[in-house]
């Protein structure tokens, strides 16, 4: 399978995701943001980091870059798009995903391993996970506090578009297990066609037992199959 990782000035998880993709046997290429055509790919990844320093709103400026037009075209024609962390923020800025990511409720950057629950495993991104499976995944962000309007929230629920929710070790989804204040503990969502996934946790950090655990592996192997 062919994948492309879009690199913006200030992206800093681009190398990490590339490494994970290669480990999972994707044929990966890095695509610089100034490029105007996108190599043909089955998967486009917008990686984490601080594109343009996140100085205006996280993801805002990257959302206006040349390459993003191509990403939008590809997404509309059904290509899989995965946005992780800053990538998720960028996807909401482009409108490919609805809602937005506000400052964490404690106004601090948060880096730790948290638990998330698989809410929908009937998608091309999550099929290798069990429904309600609890994963331990690293988060690292300032703005991960997902917010959307009530119409869209209902749509997310009714159409089963929530991918992951923050929970505790036992799977309880509540305020205590919500690290950043996200609405309904939402950690990741799909678009209505379910070919776009945006998520705050970093699956690429969880593919190597020497470094962490391997809870992220099945995300990539789901995509492969």
């Amino acid at each position: 399978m062919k994948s492309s990782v879009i690199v913006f000035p200030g992206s800093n998880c681009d190398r990490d995701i590339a490494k994970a993709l290669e480990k999972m046997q994707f044929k990966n290429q890095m695509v610089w943001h100034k490029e105007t055509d996108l190599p043909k790919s089955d998967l486009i990844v917008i990686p984490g980091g601080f594109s343009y320093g996140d100085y205006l709103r996280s993801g805002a400026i990257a959302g206006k870059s040349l390459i993003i037009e191509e990403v939008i075209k590809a997404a509309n024609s059904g290509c899989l798009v995965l946005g992780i962390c800053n990538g998720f923020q960028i996807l909401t800025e482009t409108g490919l995903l609805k809602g937005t990511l506000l400052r964490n409720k404690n106004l601090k950057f948060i880096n730790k391993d948290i638990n998330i629950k698989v809410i929908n495993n009937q998608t091309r991104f999550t099929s290798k996970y069990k429904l309600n499976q609890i994963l331990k995944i690293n988060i690292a962000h300032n703005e991960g506090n997902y917010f959307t309007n009530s119409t869209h929230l209902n749509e997310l629920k009714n159409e089963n578009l929530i991918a992951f929710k923050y929970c505790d070790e036992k799977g309880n989804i509540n305020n205590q297990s919500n690290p950043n204040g996200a609405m309904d503990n939402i950690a990741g969502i799909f678009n209505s066609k379910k070919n776009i996934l945006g998520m705050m946790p970093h699956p690429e950090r969880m593919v190597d037992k020497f470094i962490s655990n391997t809870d992220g592996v099945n995300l990539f192997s789901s995509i492969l199959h």
Partner: protein
Amino acid sequence: MEITNTIIEKHGLKKEEYESIKKLLKRNPNLLELGIFSAMWNEHCSYKSSRLHLKKLPTKGKQVIQGPGENAGVIDIGDDDAIVFKIESHNHPSYIEPYQGAATGVGGILRDVFTMGARPIALLNSIHFGSPNHPKTKSLLNGVVSGIGGYGNCIGIPTVAGETKFNETYNENILVNAMAVGHAKKNKIFYSKAKGVNKSVVYVGSKTGRDGIHGASMASAEFDENSEDKKPTVQVGDPFTEKLLLEACLELMKDDSIIAIQDMGAAGLTSSSVEMASKGSLGIELELDKVPCREENMTPYEMMLSESQERMLIILEDGKEDYARQIFAKWDLDFVIIGRTTNTNKLTLKFKNKIEGEIPLEALASKAPIYNRKWSKKKISRKKLDLKKLKKIKIEDALIKILSSPNHSNKSWITNQYDQMVMCDTAQKSGSDAAIIRIHDKNKAIALSVDSSANYCKSHPITGGKQIVCENWRNLISVGSKPLAITNCLNFGNPENEEIMGEFAECLEGIKEACEFLKFPVVSGNVSFYNGTNKKNIYPTPVIGGVGLIQNLNKTLSHKFKKEKSIIVLIGKTFGHLEQSCFLKENYSIIDGNPPEINLINEKNNGEMVLKLIERKLVLSAHDISNGGLLIALSEMSMGSNLGIKIEKSKKLRDLKEYFFGEDQGRYVLEIDEKNLTSVEKFLKSGSIYYEIIGKTQENFFEIENEMKIDTNVLYKANNQWYNNY
């Protein structure tokens, strides 16, 4: 403009120094030249008070590729890999504006590392604050922590270890020391020495603004009531631009276009151009009209002394200009040829086709003043503290008291604000004896730790100096690494004060002895004097940053207990030294007496033995014993798991508090699988290592036979509340 006494004083220069400037120039300097002298001759850049002492440090070893004298030290870690690292202080700026001060401190030290061709792979920090009750402490702590995180997180380099301490001595003068560690290919190290005449001198990075003018002089003076006036010199960090600069520099370094490269740190364009040219015994000529400026109408004086961040100076090979320019354009960075190297041995500054300043380089560098400042030996009290009259306290209560104190509380409130995982090579994060960072795409790793002990150094500078080196060494050993080399940041008070200078000389003597004995050379460092306000100086606070090598990632260790029923072995002799201990400090508010002695022979033997046992996979977990003594070390191994320990009270125990809280040096706790005990004991005996078997791990309870038994959760809770309630 006439150079008056007030102007000279404002530039931090002494009368005699001004006289030498006139002699060296054979005329009066103009204001621009005076500014340049003041920048180069201040303590921060010239090391005039410390140089004679620093010379004594051991800096050689077969692992050393580059010792002190470059932007950072470089060591060999086998194959074609090298590690580049250095620590630096940003104390004064962080006190004035904690967020930006700390952030730019991180930015500055990162540039020192990537200028040498290394990709930064880890950040560490040592931060010291005043008493938690001091009205400023809380906001300083918040600002510094978010500044460190703000910069490191944005640029995408994991912050993996550090230390945070509170002590009244820092009430008016906090310490913020940042260390950066990078990885380079051995044959691709870049240096700052210029070579060749008429080569292009290129300015890259951010534009120059009026920020930070005279920052280096600020770092070389005491604070007083008027320090507030110095506020306009605050610099704002721009980690996004630094990320671009990092990537652009590394891209250009793939090829061999660069003759020499130097970041613009303290004293900006002045020190970078002077250093490159003087190291190469060349001259340098700059056309200041070409310097990219952020503000209108900037003067040569402002351009030369600005400390705007995220800038570099590069000397390029002939004909490489366009190639290099393209790379910087790709990263949206300024790239301007602002001058040439010359054979005049002078710094020549042109502006609007006029020579505005010309100074022989040796006057700025080799002929800068060096002082052999007076220093006096510390008077050491020989009297033992009388501890017999102390009110009795239960071991359990003393333990909880220490674990819940600000200095010992779990630091995750801080470390959760740092991205520790980005780059995906962090095999062990902060909270352990040493962080472990894998060498990308390889199975080997380095271990990293920073350490200091201001109370020890204050009461007995020589022992304190030795102790911090040894503690650092023990931390590196405990995770299974072979200690290779250190960097050091020497935070002291006013060097013009004999006692302070004595603390400096003696701490350095201690560092030297320990480094020599352990073959643990110093490859880089930084000196920060004048830490104090109105004649109140901080305690001597040298900080050691050490790097160790792990050949095989399979053989690393954490300090957490792994399973029940394993045997707990205490390595090293316990004498029960309580003077200067946490036990006395936290329970009785006594900070007195001498620190525990350092026996370098034991230190070395014990450490090498522990490392050998770890390498043979005979150890399940290991932890060095430092502040707080044995019981604290054991609790740290237990907390966060449901595994505790049952300590069998041996008859030998004279005094429980001495045994459990004494801070005798050179000791480790090892968790050994029962089945390996015989082979471990064999090794220990063959090496004549003193050891005691003190008990076994067990589920759920932390217990000393017939003395205390508490739920391991109680320890955890005690240890995890302070920051969250502060």
